C-alpha cells in the first residue's frame, strides 16, 4: 500500500546475486519465490521496500531480496522495524521472523508491534523447530517432539502463533504454507491491510522437522484438510460437501455436512473477516477434528501507530516556534551586565 505509483518489476528483479544458503528442499525456497512473485504484482518499488529480519534460518531472507534489507539480532526485528517506520513511514516494510525468533526470544516485541499496529507485514515462518542451531524444540513444537534438547520428547505445550497475534491486538491475521499456490494471495491481502499484518506461514524444515505439516499440506486429500477462508464466502471444504457452522449452545464451531448446494440450510457460516469473535474461534479451531484454517482469518483495520505518532507530533508542535536560541534561553533568566570597570576577578 505504500507504493502509490505502480512500479514495473519482474520476479528476476527481486533476486540478488547472493547464493541462497538454505538446505536443499527447505520450505524457505518456496516462500522466497512466492514473495518474489507477489511483489511485482503489487507494483512494489525495490528502492522503497525493506526486508527486516531477526536471527534464524528464515531471517537470512533479506540477503536474497534485491531491496533494502536489515538482518538484525535475535528477536528484535519488530522493534527495529518500528524505528524504521517511524523515521520514514513511506517505506514498505516486510518483517521476516520464525517461531523461535518471533515467539520465544522476541515474543515481547511481537506483542507490542501488533498492539501498536505499526503498518508493516510480518511473515512468521513456523517450522516448529530451531533450525539454524541444529534442531532444538521451539515454542511451537508439538508435545513429545524429540530433539537434541528434548531427547525423550518435549513436554511444554506449544504456542499458537495466530491466537497469540490476535490476543496481542493484531488487526490482520492470515495463514498459509510454503508450497501453497494461495500464499501470494494471503501476502497481497496482508499488504493491502493498513496496519500490522500477521501472517503465519507453515514451513517445512526438511532437516530437523521433516514433513510435520504433511497431514494438511500434502496435495493428496488437501481439499478435505484445508479450509481456505475468503471474506464473504461460505466456509466450505471437501469440495463443498462439508462446512463450518456455529454450535450456538456451546458457542463453538462445528463441522456440518452439506447436501448439494444447500450450505445455507446446513447453517454454514459466511466468512466475515471483520468479526473478531469469529476470528478467535478460527484461530483456536483444532486441526484434526477440523480442517486447517488458512487464508485471511481476520482483517479489520484501525488507525496505525505511525499515523498517531505523526499526528501527535503535529499537535504538540502546533503554534510553537522551533527556535533553538529561544529554547535555550527559556524559563527565568537573568543578565549579567558588562562592568564599566573590569574588576581583577578570578581567572576564567
Amino acid at each position: 500500500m505504500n507504493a502509490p505509483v505502480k512500479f514495473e518489476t519482474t520476479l528476476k528483479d527481486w533476486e540478488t546475486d547472493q547464493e541462497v544458503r538454505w538446505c536443499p528442499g527447505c520450505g524457505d525456497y518456496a516462500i522466497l519465490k512466492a514473495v518474489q512473485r507477489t511483489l511485482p504484482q503489487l507494483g512494489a518499488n525495490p528502492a522503497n521496500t525493506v526486508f527486516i529480519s531477526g536471527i534464524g534460518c528464515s531471517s537470512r531472507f533479506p540477503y536474497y531480496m534485491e531491496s533494502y534489507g536489515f538482518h538484525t539480532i535475535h528477536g528484535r526485528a519488530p522493534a527495529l522495524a518500528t524505528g524504521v517506520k517511524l523515521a520514514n513511514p513511506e517505506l514498505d516494510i516486510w518483517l521476516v521472523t520464525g517461531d523461535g525468533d518471533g515467539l520465544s526470544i522476541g515474543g515481547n516485541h511481537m506483542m507490542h508491534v501488533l498492539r501498536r499496529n505499526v503498518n508493516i507485514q510480518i511473515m512468521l515462518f513456523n517450522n516448529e523447530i530451531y533450525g539454524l542451531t541444529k534442531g532444538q524444540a521451539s515454542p511451537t513444537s508439538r508435545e513429545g517432539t524429540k530433539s537434541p534438547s528434548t531427547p525423550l520428547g518435549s513436554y511444554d505445550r506449544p504456542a499458537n502463533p495466530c491466537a497469540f497475534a490476535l490476543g496481542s491486538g493484531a488487526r490482520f491475521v492470515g495463514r498459509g504454507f510454503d508450497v501453497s499456490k494461495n500464499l501470494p494471495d494471503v501476502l497481497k491481502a496482508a499488504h493491502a491491510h493498513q496496519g500490522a499484518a500477521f501472517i503465519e506461514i507453515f514451513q517445512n524444515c526438511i532437516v530437523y522437522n521433516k514433513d510435520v505439516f504433511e497431514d494438511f499440506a500434502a496435495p493428496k486429500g488437501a481439499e478435505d484438510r484445508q479450509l481456505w477462508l475468503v471474506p464473504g464466502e461460505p466456509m466450505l471444504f471437501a469440495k463443498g460437501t462439508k462446512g463450518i457452522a456455529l454450535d450456538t449452545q456451546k458457542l463453538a464451531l462445528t463441522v456440518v455436512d452439506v447436501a448439494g448446494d444447500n450450505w445455507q440450510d446446513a447453517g454454514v457460516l459466511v466468512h466475515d473477516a471483520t468479526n473478531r469473535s469469529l476470528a478467535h474461534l478460527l484461530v483456536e479451531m483444532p486441526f484434526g477434528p477440523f480442517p486447517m484454517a488458512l487464508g485471511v482469518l481476520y482483517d479489520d483495520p484501525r488507525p496505525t501507530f505511525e499515523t498517531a505518532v505523526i499526528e501527535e507530533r503535529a499537535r504538540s508542535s502546533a503554534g510553537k516556534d522551533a527556535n533553538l536560541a529561544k529554547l535555550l534561553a527559556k524559563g527565568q533568566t537573568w543578565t549579567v551586565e558588562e562592568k564599566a570597570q573590569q574588576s581583577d576577578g578570578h581567572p576564567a
Partner: protein
Amino acid sequence: MATSAATRPQDTDIPEAVVVRFAGDSGDGMQLTGGQFTLSTALAGNDLATFPDFPAEIRAPQGTLFGVSAFQINFGSREINTAGDAPDVLVAMNPAALKVNIAALKPGGLVIIDTGEFTKRNLDKAKYDVSPLDDGSLAKWDVLAFDISALTIEAVKPFGLGNKDALRSKNMWTLGLALWMFDRPRDPVHDWLRAKFKNKPDIANANIAALDAGHAYGETAELSGPIKQLHLPPVDSAPGLYRTITGAEAISLGLVAGAQLAELPMFFGGYPITPASAILHHLARLKEFGVTTFQAEDEIAAICAAIGASYAGQLGVTSSSGPGIALKTEAMGLAIMTELPLVIVNSQRGGPSTGLPTKTEQSDLYQAVYGRNGDAPMPVVSCSSPSDAFECAIEACRIAVEYMTPVMLLTDGYIANAAEPWAVPDPASYTPFPAKFLQEKNGGDTLLPYKRDAKGARPWIKPGTPDLMHRIGGIEKQVDTGHIDYAPDNHQAMTDARVSKVLGVTIPDQEVALGQPGGKLAVVGWGSTFGPIHQAVRRSRAKGLDVSHIHVRHIWPLPKNLGELLHSYDNVLVPEMNTGQFKTVLRDQYLVDAQPLTKTSGQPFAIAELETAIGRFFDGIEGNEGGEVSVNDTQLPSPELDA
C-alpha cells in the same frame, strides 16, 4: 583570606558562600522548596550548586528514617563548584529529617526545626527515645525550634482548607523564611505558584499566604534576636544571559542542538528508568524541533528502534541507566557492526543490579569502554557538570554522525538532578556537522556500502534512495561490498578497521584544568567529580602544594597527549565514585602508576576527603597542613590564587 570568612549566618561578617540543606519527609515537598530557592538564588545573581538527595520509594511511609528527602544548595558571591561538604543551615521538618541530617551540620550551624512534628509517634518512628529538643544533644548548634505546622495552619486559615491540605503549604512557609534569611525576592515564587495552580486559585493563594507568613516570621524573629538576615552580593560572572539548568535538561537540549547541527531529525527511544527518565520527559515536549520520542516496551526495543531510525536516516538516540544499558548491549554491537550513528546516554547510578536507583556512582565505565561481546570499540564521552552536559551531548552527536558509530555519553544521577547557573550559549557559535547521505553508487557501477572515507567512516545510505538497494546486518561484512564474509583475512581486516576508526576520532588535546603540566601530583578525574576535585586542588595549591587538576572528558578514545601529560607528574591520583575503573584504564593505556581514591557510598566526594588524600602525597613537606580542613570553611578558593 576567604577561608577565614565566617559562614554562619548569625555572624556579623558577610560570608562568601552558604550551604543550606532542606530536609523533610518525602511528602513534605522539600525538592520543590529547594528548586524554588535555587531559582531565587540564581535570579539574585549568586553562583550555586545543588544536590537533591531523595529516597528510591515514591511514597515511603511517613515520618520514617528512610523516607527522608533532602535538598542541599551551596551559593555565594564566589565561584561555586560543589553543593558543599557540610551545611551551615539545616531545615528539619520532622524528627527523622533531623536524625538523618544533623550530624552533617557544621558545629555552630543553625538548625531550624518544626516542633509541630515532634510528636511521640514521630519520635518513635525516627527511633528517638527522648526528644532531641529536650536532652541537650543539640547543644553544639544554634537551634531555632518552633511550631511551623501551627503557624502554617494559621496562615492559610482564610482559605478554608482542612488541616491536612493546609499542612501541605508547610514547605512554602519554610521557603518564605529561607527567602527572608537570604534577602531573596518572593515575586518569582509567587509567579510560579500562580502558574502551577492556575486552575486552583485557592490553593495558589493559600501557598502564597504561607510563603508570605514565613517571610514575615523572619522579620519578626529578627527583632527578637535568634536569626539575622544575610545578603550575599552577586557573583562576579562574565557578562551575558544566564539561567539555571539541571544535567537532564542540559543533555536534552544538547541532543536537540546536536541534531540541528547535524541537520537531522532526532529519534529518541527510551524506557522508564531512574534517573534517566527525565531526558525522555524533556524531549517528549520538544517535538517541534523534529524530535520523535518513542517509549518502547523495554530497553532493548528502545535501542533497536533508535538503530532502525538511524538506518532510515534520522539521528537515533537512546538513554538509560546501568541495568538498562546492560540490556542494550547486544544491540550496541549491532550498531557497531552495521556502522550506524547512535547516541547512547547512560545516567549512571549505584550498582550492580538494581543497586541504588536514586544515588550516584561512576561504576559503569568498564561497561562503557569494554562491556560488549567481541571486539566492539565505541567512543565514550563523559559530562562533568550540568552545563558541561550540553557541550558533551553535542560532541557525542558530532562523533556519531561524522564517524558512523554509536557513541556512549556518560552522565550520572548527581549531574542529572543537580542544578547550576548556565551562561546560555548562542547556537550559532557551534560549527555544524551536517550529515551526508549517499545519493549514487560509489564504486563505479557497483554500490560499496562499506567503502570507507578518510576518517574510516562508511557511507550513510537511506532506504528509499533509488538504485542503492543493499543489505546490512550483524554478520561480519566483507570489506567494501558489505556482503556476508566469514573469511579469516576479512574478519581481521574489518576488526582492524573498526578499531582504527574509533581510535582515530578527532578529539581535542587534554588540558590541565588547574595547575600546570609536570610537577609532584596530578589529580585526574572524569565526570561529576569535577567540582570537589577542582576545589580540593585549588585549596591545596593555596597552601603551596604542587598539585594540578586534570579532568578527562573523552574517555575513549583518550586524548593523544594524555599519556605524556600523566608521565610528566611524579604522582597520579585518580578519585572516582567506583572501585577504580578509570585508574585501570589509565594504567593499561599508559603504564602509569595511577593511584586510586575510591568511594561508593552513593554520595559525591566531599572536598575535605580529597584534600586529605592530596595531603598524603605531601607529608613532611613544609606548609602542608595534611589536608585538615577547618570546619568553618566552605569550598571557597583562596583569594591569593585569584589575584
